[in-house]
């Protein structure tokens, strides 16, 4: 396949940045999108140019590190996948492909396609945990029975990989889907109920401090989420937040 790539290049956070065009040939349908970028970078290095910086690590759809905005969509045109699982068979010979970083005020660009998503970590520091001593002296695991449906729903929320596609795709750059997934995971389990009030208040407070926008229920986040995290979680978080606010 022969393609024209239009890639956002930005030397560092201070640089203004802009789109640069790169023609590329010899791309096979079996390649992943990131392997296609590997091929491009190899060519650039051999020509004495600087390769394109992009984040990636596990390349099997689970670490959440890859973060490209491709033709105006987070992780590209395929549904339910991360960028490393996007394959070139989704494109046609002769296509022009725009590749940009995930854009949001709370995700500043580090270089080229690499952004800083540490705001997600700071939201977790504010309450994304259960306060249990890591001593190994906890009660037997089966002494806390959890209905299978609750455990499954909790797992579905916990499956979030923290990639930030929800933020990148939201017109308000809202982090509600991500935060609600974490709140839901614990809200659905008996272990998490004890400190549920503080958790939701603290995490939402930190989310606002980080500069994420509000949720206006457009649902774009759910559509673009590679792990199918459901909007139900946002509804659950709103209920949790309301109850906590009334209590607190």
């Amino acid at each position, binding site marked *: 396949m022969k393609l024209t790539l239009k890639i956002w290049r930005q030397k560092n956070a201070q640089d203004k940045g802009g789109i640069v065009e790169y023609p590329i040939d010899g791309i096979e349908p079996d390649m992943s999108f990131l392997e296609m970028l590997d091929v491009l970078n190899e060519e650039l290095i051999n020509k004495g140019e600087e390769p394109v910086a992009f984040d990636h690590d596990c390349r*099997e759809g689970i670490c959440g590190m890859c973060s490209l905005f491709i033709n105006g969509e987070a992780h590209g045109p395929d549904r339910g996948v991360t960028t490393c699982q996007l*394959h070139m068979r989704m494109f046609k010979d002769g296509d022009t492909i725009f590749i940009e970083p995930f854009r949001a005020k709370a995700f500043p660009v580090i270089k080229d396609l690499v952004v800083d998503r540490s705001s997600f970590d700071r939201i977790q520091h504010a309450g994304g945990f259960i306060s249990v001593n890591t001593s190994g002296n906890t009660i037997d695991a089966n002494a806390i029975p959890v209905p299978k449906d609750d455990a499954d729903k909790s797992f579905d929320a916990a499956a979030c990989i923290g990639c930030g596609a929800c933020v990148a795709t939201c017109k308000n750059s809202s982090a509600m889907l991500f935060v609600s997934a974490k709140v839901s995971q614990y809200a659905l389990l008996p272990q998490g109920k004890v400190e549920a009030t503080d958790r939701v208040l603290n995490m939402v407070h930190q989310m606002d401090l980080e500069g994420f926008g509000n949720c206006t229920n457009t649902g774009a986040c759910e559509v673009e989420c590679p792990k199918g995290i459901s909007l139900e979680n946002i509804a659950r978080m709103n209920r949790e937040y309301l109850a906590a606010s009334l209590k607190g």
Partner: protein
Amino acid sequence: MALDSKIPNGPIADKWTNYKDHINLVNPANKRNLDIIVVGTGLAGGSAAATLAELGYNVKAFCFQDSPRRAHSIAAQGGINAAKNYKGDGDSVYRLFYDTVKGGDYRAREANVHRLAEVSANIIDQCVAQGVPLAREYGGLLDNRSFGGTLVSRTFYAQGQTGQQLLLGAYSAMNRQIGRGKIKMYNRHEMLDIVIVNGKARGIIARNLITGEIERHSAHAVVIGSGGYGNVFFLSTNAMGSNATAAWKIHKKGAFFANPCYTQIHPTCIPVSGDHQSKLTLMSESLRNDGRIWVPKKLEDAQAIREGKKKAIDLSEDERDYFLERRYPAFGNLVPRDVASRAAKERCDAGFGVNKTGEAVYLDFAAAIERYGKEAAHVKGLNENDKALVTKLGTDIVKSKYGNLFQMYLKIVDEDPYVTPMMIYPAVHYTMGGTWVDYNLMTTIPGCFSIGESNFSDHGANRLGASALMQGLADGYFVLPYTIGDYLAPDIKMGPISTDLPEFIEAEKAVVDQINKFINNNGKHSVDYFHKKLGKIMWNKVGMARNAKGLTEAIEEIAALREEFYKDVKVPGSANEFNQELEKATRVADFLELGELFAKDALHRNESCGGHFREEYQTEEGEALRDDDNFAYVAAWEYKGKPSDAVLHKEPLNYENIKLVQRSYK
């Protein structure tokens, strides 16, 4: 220097308890005066950082990713073992201990493995208390499944994303401590050297990967939890950034490196599709619970399939060779990974491979879909002979068990595994070798500890399924927090360690010099060019099966490639910026040394065991032939300037509780 494993005396079942009763403890008020550096924040490093901070130490944690949540432990799929005996099927601490020692082909340290089995049950309790959503039965109790190499159902899991959930559990425990200010987290930082003062590990040199700044960090002890070195093969199931740097740098400063040749080749990976490939994707071993592995019985059928003239479903039962069930009737498709991998290679080498390159076997779910479908139809009172209905019901059940894995396969291969059998082939997965540690998990550098996959101790020559997650969390949550206190007790009055000491300045200078050398080299080839070449040598001559001739050649070829690398590598950009090529260059430099030591270790070990198969040493039936009289030891290598000069030290392995026999899964 003599190796002292510091294994406590006494009966095996009492060793750990007695040991804990007698070690030195640090008073909580004094823990505040002690600093610990943790490098790597996966299951081992993350759980260690959280627990050490919980105890009161000041922890500085480092990871090269943008967040600890992305450590490659997150990709582990199948599960974590624990001797809970919830199923009442005969499991016990002893049986988990026994299975692990046998599975490791009698090359693990008994005392460590027993301790691992003892704390395994606590791990599940701890994780559940932290809110890890492990799979449940309808009654609300925890569910289990079985894994290769065992006859009991002791594996706890969270769909095919167990590593993810356990890692996020450790990450949440870390987050709590980061929020309290007890852990200072350094994301996007890479450790590039260790600093030793008066013979003790007292700090590290790290590079801030965003700014390129070289930083000095001091501590009273350094813990390495940086994972394995499978990326020495270039193609592996490891994440692209997984590297050997931390472990290799401490090796060069005095930590012995043990059993580098023990590599686990995982049997169920998606086969290589072409030269562009950057990594291999594993399909969880749990698939072997329901998937049946086969190749055609007749060579001409295999050829017709490779040429696209026939399909898997065209072959009747009689025309299929379920080779694992045929060769190992007791364990069948659930034989351990090394046995399953070699059996697949043997069939493909004999010409029965089923993909274009002839390097794939089938993993077929048709029988499971039918079996589950019939059962579901029966339960619901529907027609068990309605094939379409049975297929649908069975598919739904298989989907609920392995849905994400099937979807992953479909995305990569572009074939629906519910309809046509998956194609799989072995790939490099986990490294059982690593830095040598004593019972305290301390390396031969005092004050430098190594935990999880980066040490060598618990898996022997082969790792059973669902045992890596167990070891990572056992080391981090429950073992290191005790043993490090014993080491630190004499340091309570020491006060903070200055980073202006000459040892820090010297170590920093060496790091800066190496980086500048790469940046100014201006050679002809990219880093990947050399890494891929190294990978080819490793896979062809130091891979699943090795012989003396190939290994001797590999040692020479790797040394020559290393020379070429330093002469001819091209690293664009500058040192003082975000520079991913520079990161790769420093890592590949280490792999180019480690690969040679790996081959040297494989050449000296004149036997076959677990993940080390020497073609010269096999039984008449093609099984691994150990030599316990001459090789029942840990090979611990001391660095002497270059890999070829490394000096071998031996730690004899004494089996007092388990009799050494030939592993048989027949």
